[in-house]
C-alpha cells in the first residue's frame, strides 16, 4: 500500500486525536469525572497504539508492535466500560429525579407523613410533622411515636397500632397530640409495609390536623342536644296546653249544651204565654240567644277537634315504637275494609297490588295509610269514576309504596305546603277537615326513618310515594 497515503491518514488521525483531547479538556467540567477519565483513556490508547505502529513501520523499534497489540485489546474494553458508566449515570439521574419529585410532594404536604419501624419508632417524619411538633427530623429519629399522644388517647392509640399486625394491616383512628401550638386533634391512617415473606418492615402513617373540624363537630353536637331539649320542651308545651285547654272547653261545651236545653224549655214556656204582647216582646231576644248559643257551641266543637289534633300530633314525638315486620297487603286490605262505606258513598274503587313487607311500627303505618287513603277518597273527582291504586316495590333496603288516585290533583305551588300543620288547600270547599292528616303522616314518617313525596297534577290526580325500611333490613 502507498506509504504516503498511510502517512496522510495517520497524520490526520493524530490531529483528530489531539483535537479530541483538547475538546475533552474544554468540556471537562460538564462531563462526569469517571466518564472524562475513560474518554481520556480511550484517546490515549489510540494515540499510543499508533505511536507503536509508526515505530514499527519506520523499522526503528520492531518490538513496539507487541505493545501496540496489547493496547489494541484494551480499546474495545474501554469502549464497553465507557457505555456502562454512561448507563449507570443515566440510571442514577433517573433515580435522583424520581426521588426529587417525591420529596417535593412530601416536603410540601400540609398533611403529616411519617414512617415508623415495626416497634413504632420514627424512621422518617415529613417537614410538616416537624414544623407542627417543633422537632427536627434528627431529634425524632429512633424515638417512639407515642410520647406526644394525649394520656387519655394513649391506650386507644396502642390498641389501634396493635391491629397493624393482623390483616388488613391498616388502621384509622383519631387522637389528641401535643404540638407546639398545644393539644390538637389528629386523624391518622396507618398502613404496614410487608416484605416478600409477609413480615412487617415499616409502618407508614398519614395524619391530618382535624382540630377545627372536631370543634365544629362539638358545637354541632351541643346545638343538637339543645335543639332536642327545646323540641321536647315545645312538645310538652303543646301537650300540656292542649291538655289544659281541654278542661275549660269541656265546661264550655257542657254548659253550652245545658244552656241550649234551657233555651228550648224557655221557648216552650214562652209559647204557652197568654199575653201575645209579652210573647212578641221576648221572642227577638230568644232568637239572639239561640243564635249566640249556636256560634258558641259550634266554635267550642271546632276548638275541641283542633285540640284533639294537636294532642295527637304532640303524642307522635313521645310514642314508643315497636318495630316489627308489617305485612302491608293485609294491613291495607283491613284499612280499606274499615273504609268500605266511605268508598261506596264516593263511588270509587280501591285496587291493591301485592305489597312487599316493611319493618316498622304497625300502629303508625296504619295511621299513615289510613290518612292517605282517606284523603284519596275525599278528593276524588266527581266528574269521573274514581280509581285509587296502592302499589309497592322493594329496592336498596327500602320499600316504596305508592297511593295513586285520579282525583282532583294538587297545584304545583301547593306541593310543599300540604304537609304543613293546619294547611288546607280549599278551606271553603265542600270537603271538611282540619289540615292535620298529612302533617301527622310527615311526623310519623320522620320518626320511622321513612319519607314521603308527592307527584300531582291538577285534574289528573295525585301520587303519594311513601318510603319505609324493608323487612329484609331486620337485624342489619
Amino acid at each position, binding site marked *: *500500500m502507498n506509504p504516503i*497515503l*498511510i502517512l496522510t*491518514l*495517520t497524520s*490526520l*488521525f493524530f490531529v*483528530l*486525536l489531539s*483535537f*479530541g483531547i483538547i*475538546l*475533552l479538556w*474544554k*468540556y471537562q467540567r*460538564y*462531563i462526569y469525572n469517571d466518564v472524562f477519565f475513560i*474518554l481520556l483513556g*480511550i484517546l490515549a490508547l*489510540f494515540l499510543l497504539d499508533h505511536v507503536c505502529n509508526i515505530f514499527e513501520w519506520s523499522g526503528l523499534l520492531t518490538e513496539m508492535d507487541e505493545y501496540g*497489540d*496489547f493496547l*489494541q*485489546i484494551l*480499546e*474495545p*474494553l474501554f*469502549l*464497553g466500560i465507557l*457505555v*456502562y458508566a*454512561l*448507563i449507570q449515570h*443515566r*440510571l442514577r439521574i433517573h433515580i435522583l429525579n424520581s426521588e426529587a419529585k417525591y420529596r417535593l410532594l412530601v416536603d410540601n404536604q400540609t398533611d403529616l407523613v411519617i414512617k415508623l419501624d415495626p416497634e413504632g419508632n420514627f424512621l422518617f417524619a415529613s417537614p410538616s410533622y416537624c414544623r407542627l411538633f417543633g422537632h427536627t427530623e434528627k431529634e425524632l429519629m429512633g424515638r417512639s411515636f407515642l410520647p406526644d399522644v394525649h394520656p387519655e388517647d394513649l391506650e386507644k392509640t396502642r390498641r389501634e397500632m396493635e391491629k397493624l399486625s393482623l390483616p388488613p394491616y391498616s388502621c384509622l383512628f383519631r387522637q389528641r397530640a401535643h404540638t407546639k401550638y398545644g393539644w390538637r386533634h389528629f386523624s391518622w391512617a396507618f398502613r404496614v409495609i410487608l416484605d416478600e415473606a409477609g413480615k412487617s418492615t415499616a409502618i407508614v402513617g398519614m395524619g391530618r390536623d382535624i382540630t377545627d373540624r372536631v370543634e365544629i363537630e362539638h358545637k354541632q353536637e351541643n346545638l343538637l342536644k339543645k335543639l332536642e331539649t327545646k323540641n321536647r320542651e315545645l312538645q310538652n308545651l303543646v301537650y300540656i296546653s292542649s291538655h289544659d285547654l281541654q278542661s275549660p272547653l269541656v265546661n264550655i261545651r257542657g254548659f253550652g249544651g245545658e244552656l241550649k236545653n234551657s233555651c228550648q224549655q224557655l221557648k216552650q214556656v214562652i209559647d204557652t204565654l197568654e199575653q201575645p204582647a209579652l210573647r212578641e216582646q221576648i221572642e227577638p231576644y230568644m232568637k239572639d240567644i239561640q243564635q249566640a248559643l249556636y256560634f258558641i257551641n259550634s266554635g267550642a266543637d271546632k276548638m275541641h277537634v283542633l285540640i284533639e289534633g294537636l294532642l295527637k300530633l304532640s303524642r307522635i314525638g313521645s310514642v314508643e315504637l315497636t318495630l316489627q315486620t308489617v305485612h302491608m297487603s293485609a294491613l291495607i286490605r283491613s284499612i280499606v275494609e274499615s273504609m268500605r262505606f266511605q268508598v261506596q258513598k264516593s263511588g270509587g274503587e280501591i285496587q291493591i297490588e301485592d305489597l312487599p313487607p316493611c319493618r316498622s311500627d304497625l300502629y303508625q303505618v296504619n295511621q299513615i295509610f289510613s290518612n292517605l287513603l282517606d284523603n284519596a277518597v275525599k278528593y276524588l273527582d266527581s266528574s269521573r269514576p274514581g280509581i285509587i291504586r296502592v302499589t309497592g316495590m322493594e329496592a336498596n333496603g327500602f320499600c316504596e309504596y305508592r297511593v295513586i288516585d285520579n282525583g282532583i290533583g294538587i297545584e304545583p305551588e301547593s306541593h310543599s305546603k300540604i304537609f304543613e300543620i293546619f294547611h288546607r288547600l280549599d278551606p271553603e270547599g265542600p270537603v271538611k277537615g282540619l289540615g292535620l292528616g298529612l302533617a301527622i303522616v310527615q311526623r310519623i314518617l320522620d320518626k320511622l326513618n321513612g319519607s314521603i313525596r308527592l307527584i300531582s297534577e291538577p285534574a289528573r290526580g295525585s301520587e303519594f310515594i311513601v318510603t319505609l325500611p324493608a323487612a329484609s333490613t331486620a337485624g342489619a
Partner: protein
Amino acid sequence: MFQKNEVITLLITVGIGIFFWSNRKSILQLNGWKLLILSFLCYLARMIFTVLEGYIWYDVMNLLEHLSILLFTIFFLLWCWQIGYQKEKNP
C-alpha cells in the same frame, strides 16, 4: 496470515457489541446515541478489516481499516463534542 491478538480484539469487540445490543433501551436514552453507535460500528468494521487483511486483498483491507478507524475517530470526537456542548448549553 492473521494475528492472534487481532482475532482476540475482534472477539472482544463482538462481545461489547452484544453488551450494547442487550442494553439498547438504555443506550437509546443516552445523549448523541446515534454518533456513539456509528463510531462503535466503525470500530467493529476496523477490526473485521484488520482480521480480513491477513487473508485477502491486503492493500484494500488495510486502507479500509485505516479509513474505518479514521471515521471512528471523527464520530467519536463529534459525540464527545456533542455531549460537552449540550451540557454547556443546558447544565
